[in-house]
């Protein structure tokens, strides 16, 4: 028994030593590998394009890159919890994360050269800028997106005024049972994003701008007087059945594709669906109601994290984002990979996609989604105000719904 036990102990010790040896050899190999490595978080769709670009950049600079696939929706929050040794130096991100990331101190300011700045529409840079005291740029925009009104030109004429849109949509709805007015998605949880053109068209805004040019979370425009003056129109639309909050995303899409809706509010993520549908369509901005019915603009781009400094590769990471991702070639490649319009103006001129070009036009004058972290308090309430006032029978008056929403938002922001 004693002998057995000794052998066993020996075996355990031996195995442990082997493992230790293997571990240290592996780490020695890792540390002797040449050149610093930049780690990039990109989503599945754009991983290949990002890896190609990053490798081209890296071989020119003598560095190496490691592109990791990370679920796009999780990048923002995971950056706050990831261990420093595993953290990325560069991330892909949406512009409306900027406030939260900067308020958490997770991203580094980026300084673009004057020549580079000229290549970007001012709003795209503004979308990635944040600061309560000093406004700084935290990301280089790569692509832009917005929703538009898709019109089935076989069924109806492309409207030029909102009155025309309203009468055509209602006439179409009356033609057959099951037909819809305007297919714009809401559902139980509401969808303030897809409703924004109607919101802005009635005079609504989310946050005002203060003297320093920053979004002011204490100035909430969800129930501003101009908007309230026009809010009765929502009650009218609800009564006519022009829009209906019970319509969710998939129902809206199916209705349009099956020809049960002549108007559909959606964005470029459905451009392949549209192209494959075989329908004849045009994409326009929702016609002006009382004010231009502009959509929200979404900008995506690349950001340098604070971990780049921790890892001692900040200059390289900054070089990749500020000097390379900003170039027209890189932006064109990314735009092709993701089916979105490039942010870089020169790349945009070379980008030929008829559907995306129409979406681009539908975004004229649009408003970037507010990028301050307080926006998190707005989405649900604004969406629910629409849900409550456009749910058909039993809907509450729009003016009171939106007033309640404004109060709730103010309470939450505190």
């Amino acid at each position: 028994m004693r002998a057995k036990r000794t052998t066993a102990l020996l075996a355990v010790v031996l195995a442990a030593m082997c493992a230790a040896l293997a571990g240290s050899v592996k780490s020695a190999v890792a540390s002797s590998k040449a050149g610093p490595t930049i780690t990039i978080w990109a989503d599945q769709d754009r991983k290949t394009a990002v890896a190609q670009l990053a490798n081209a950049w890296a071989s020119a600079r003598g560095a190496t890159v490691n592109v990791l696939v990370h679920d796009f929706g999780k990048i923002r929050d995971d950056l706050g919890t990831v261990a420093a040794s595993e953290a990325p130096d560069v991330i892909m991100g949406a512009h409306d994360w900027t406030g939260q990331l900067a308020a958490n101190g997770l991203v580094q300011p980026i300084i673009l050269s004057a020549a580079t700045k000229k290549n970007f529409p001012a709003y795209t840079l503004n979308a990635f800028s944040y600061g309560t005291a000093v406004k700084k740029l935290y990301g280089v925009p790569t692509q832009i997106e917005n929703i538009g009104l898709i019109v089935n030109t076989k069924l109806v004429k492309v409207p030029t005024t909102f009155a025309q849109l309203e009468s055509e949509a209602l006439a179409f709805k009356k033609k057959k049972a099951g037909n819809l007015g305007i297919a714009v998605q809401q559902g139980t949880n509401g969808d303030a994003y897809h409703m924004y053109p109607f919101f802005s068209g009635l005079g609504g805004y989310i946050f005002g701008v203060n003297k320093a040019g920053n979004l002011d979370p204490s100035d909430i425009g969800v129930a501003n007087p101009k908007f309230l003056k026009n809010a009765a129109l929502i009650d009218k639309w609800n009564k006519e059945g022009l829009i209906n909050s019970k319509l969710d995303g998939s129902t809206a899409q199916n209705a349009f594709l099956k020809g049960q809706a002549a108007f559909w509010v959606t964005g470029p993520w459905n451009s392949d669906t549209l192209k494959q549908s075989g329908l004849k369509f045009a994409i326009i901005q929702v016609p002006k109601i009382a004010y231009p019915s502009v959509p929200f603009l979404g900008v995506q781009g690349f950001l340098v994290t604070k971990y780049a400094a921790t890892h001692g590769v900040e200059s390289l990471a900054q070089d990749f984002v500020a000097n390379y991702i900003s170039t027209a070639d890189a932006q064109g490649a990314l735009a092709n990979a993701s089916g979105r319009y490039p942010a870089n103006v020169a790349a945009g001129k070379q980008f030929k996609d008829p559907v995306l070009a129409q979406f681009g036009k539908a975004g004229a004058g649009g408003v970037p989604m507010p990028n301050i972290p307080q926006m998190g308090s707005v989405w649900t309430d604004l969406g629910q105000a629409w849900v409550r006032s456009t749910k058909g029978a039993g809907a509450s008056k729009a003016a009171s719904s939106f007033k309640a929403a404004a109060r709730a938002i103010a309470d939450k922001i505190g």
Partner: protein
Amino acid sequence: MSTTTASSAGLPPKMPRAAFTPRLISLFSGTVGLVVKVALLSISNAFAIWAGYVLAQRHQWIGLIVLVVATVGIDLLYFGGRRVLPLKFLLPGVLFMVSFQIVPILYTIDVSFTNYSTGHISSKSDAIRQIQLNSLQPPANGKQYTMAAARDAQGKLVLILQDQANGETFVGTTKGLQPLPKSAVKTGALGITAAKGYRILKGNELFSLDSTIRALKVPTQGQSAISPQTISTAAELEPTLRYDAKAGTFTRITDGAVFRDNGKGSFTHGNQELEPGWKTGVGLRNFGSILNDPLVSGPFFRIFVWTFVFAVSVVFLSFAVGLFLAIALNKKGLRFQRIYRSLVLIPWAVPGFLSLLVWQGLLNDDFGVVNRLLHLNIPWLFDGNWAKVSCILVSFWLTVPYFFLVSMGALQAIPEELTEAARVDGGGPFQIFRKVTLPLLLVAVSPLLIASFAFNFNNFNNIFLLTGGGPTQANQPIAGSTDILISYTYKLAIATGKGQDYGLASAVSIIIFVLVATISAVSFSRTKALENLN
């Protein structure tokens, strides 16, 4: 299962054929057992060494100590003699309980006493560094340069700079800018490639000096200085805030406003706040706001009542129906028994995430199948009270199979002699069920009822995927009609203030934990009473 038949004669008396468990034990105590033991321990030790290596690399000394103690303990224990036998069985369970139950609870408690939230996630020193970095701004007419790091003849680190606007070239040191003749500097596609009298740093030599080069500041005028931005560019920047390390305050240079540590993880001046802040202890403030903040405390009681109603009705409805089905399908000689049983189990076989989303579509009041088929016009999801009904019904649908299975098992465990005896004594079927079957069944099932209650009390998935807590109520910013405590906590955590307030959410979680624990403890003590009755 009986041991009497197993221990038959015919086998050598030295090795009596024992029951399954002792046989298994005897199988594993020989050489096979030793080999398995050594293999498992080796794996555990190898894993521990790898983990220890990683922990040491990251300077996680407490974690390392815990790891070493645990590993050595495991090794000693499993080579120990008979005296520690019970521990051999207890230890793995205890270890898993500690790592997956106790540690998260301790962590939640720890977080609930901090201000961990958007803007307060890093350490104070990190925050100060970031504030300083964020405060840099290009001065009026600030210049931008193409840059290369280089060493001069003495080997000192300098910056070779070329003004991007007019092409003038300089050498920058910590003393300031010195003009260089344009002809001395050569540039290529990637910036400055050579400078006469200087050796341009390239490749790994350049990359390894990253933090040193970035710290190099070339003063220009006033507070402004040129500092490297990328490996090939630099910019002239001016601080807008000055940090006084001794006083621990920031001073705004333009107007002299002083930002002080407000004790809650931020530098503030009046209502102005410098971002980012840092994570720090705030004592009982989070618990205080549950009591005092009307936004949080207002709907708390109402949500608690609804959570309770939801959990209780789901458990009792599904138990009642599950039991009924179990009895009905337990009838001997029933044809297609297996088919019926499989049909009842279908809701369980489909992933809940999927079926919840499907139900959301089915219940849509204008476009959903339910209303269309039944020619109804019920606002299943858009009216507060109906949405509550929907939540209960769908959760009920998802839970019935569980209680069907459990009841079927428990029914088969009730000895037939008992029911037969009752029948002989002249009891009717209902009487037998009430007086004999149900009490015996409850002994077995009531712990499961309590567990199911605790599960449904925190059934985030069902609520969140079906209604998202909605529809909202007028004058109630956060909680919707169907929000249960846990989904309400989630909303509190992500949808207030600047976005995420983990500290407050942790405090609410602890309260929920206490509530569920109390309710379960009381119910369990009741169950004991039930057992004693028998």
